[in-house]
């Protein structure tokens, strides 16, 4: 079906009078664009910080997590499950404060209106 659609499209052409999209500055004022950029930049920095923290915590878990083998009466496979589930829990716990900050940022910029309690339980 996709192939057929592509074949049909081969025979079409772009109209000469088609105007290109306007630059953002033509639609939004400079202040709003700057604000959007600021919003995005913060989230990017937060993502980098969250990823670095997560990697650091996972590195610590990889070194120290073996101690949790003592917490298991199961065999090797069961203990592996325990460590895996514990890893999932740790990932969630480490990311939680960053998500909270991101949520605060979203609310600050009007990108989200959900309350903190609803967000926490929704998360």
């Amino acid at each position: 079906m996709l192939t057929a659609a592509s074949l049909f499209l081969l025979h079409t052409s772009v109209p000469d009078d088609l105007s290109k999209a306007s630059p953002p500055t033509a639609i939004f004022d400079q202040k709003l664009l700057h604000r959007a950029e600021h919003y995005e930049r913060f989230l990017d920095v937060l993502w980098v910080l969250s990823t670095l923290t997560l990697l650091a915590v996972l590195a610590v878990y990889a070194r120290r997590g073996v101690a949790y083998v003592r917490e298991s009466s199961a065999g090797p496979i069961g203990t592996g499950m325990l460590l895996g589930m514990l890893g999932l829990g740790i990932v969630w716990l480490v990311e939680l404060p960053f998500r909270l900050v991101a949520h605060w940022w979203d609310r600050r910029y009007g990108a989200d209106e959900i309350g903190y309690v609803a967000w926490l339980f929704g998360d």
Partner: protein
Amino acid sequence: MAASRAERPIRLVVRDSDLARRRLTVFFRLILAIPVFVWLLVWGVAAFVVAFVLWLGILINGEPPESLHAFVAGYLRYWSHASAYVFLAADPWPGFRGSTDYPVDLEIDPPTRQSRWKTVFRLFLALPAILLASTLGGAPGEGGWQFGSYHSQGHGSEWRVWSGVGGVAAVCAFLTWFYALVRRRAPRGLRDLVAYSLSYTAQATGYLLLLTDRYPSADPAQAEGYAELPEHPVRITVDDPLERSRLTVFFRLLLAIPHLIWLLLWSIGAFFAAVVAWFAALVTGSVPSSLHRFLAAFVRYGTHVYAYVLLVGGRFPGFVGREGSYGIDLQIEPRERQRRWATFFRFFLAIPAFFVSSALSGALFVVGFLTWWYALVTGRAPDGLRNLGAVCLRYGAQTNAYLLLVTPRYPSGSPLLEHAAAKPATDLTALGEPY
């Protein structure tokens, strides 16, 4: 452990050794109790007012005034008589004066100095104990702590209603009513369970009403003075350290997901195995040994999983239900012959046990909830709650074992975890531990 009981400032004494009940007074028990309820309500209102004065007195003097303490203690003793009468743990009508020779009575120590800090925050400190008491024995006043709300729909509704009118004690009394009408005596296990529930509730109420600043203990060992632990083919063993890893406690439900899935799958297989075992037992008089092993392992595995989820056990259990593989373990005797008529009606015969089991499950969930908080803060499980959890698990396991034809023996309601003689020497430094 006897030292532990003697140390408790509020102790339950049971002198109902013959368990005899008169059919007529059993049949009309609730009607006969109406004047007692009215008097208890009046006395209760006065006691709560006096307890407030007691609260002020302790905050000022550090010690409760003796006369006020005696008034509240008298009320609590009368409450224990009335509750024992209503819940069929005792037979004589309790009267209105709180006589000293009632078969189920409280011994309450004279007033002593109390910590002002613990007194200021008493209402909040008592909340966990009240929560547990609401699932066990109810409390003074309106026949029970009004815990939860009354919903008429959904599976949780029955548990909430039972909790509201006395929890485990109410369920036991309901079953005892039928039993006593037929046999003219109360079943020993259920009577002991009611007495234990009343004992804990009395401690919680005494703590709330400032009779003592010693936190209530849920340790079933306190029932040694009046309870018996009969031999049973399904026994629980507790050989698990109390220390808990905070991280695994925090994520306990998440970590248990693989086990819960596996238990669900196994239960499907166990259902079909039980059906086959039922037909085999009807024809041959006993369950084939391979099916017995399979079903016994299933019951044991379920106990391991629930012990882990509800923090009665500390370590992550294995997936095969092998005996000796977990700290909270079940010892199950080999198969034995089963009477055919009891096998034929097994499902119906198990229904009363399921009532008790579901009531104890309510207590077990509260145990898990409280232990979760306690272990997160202290890094260990409280001794008393852990042992109470093990008792609840044992009853559930015995009920499942009975239903699944692993044993022909009916579950025992005894609150004791182990025989007094088998108990190792207890570290007396642990006596001050709450719960």
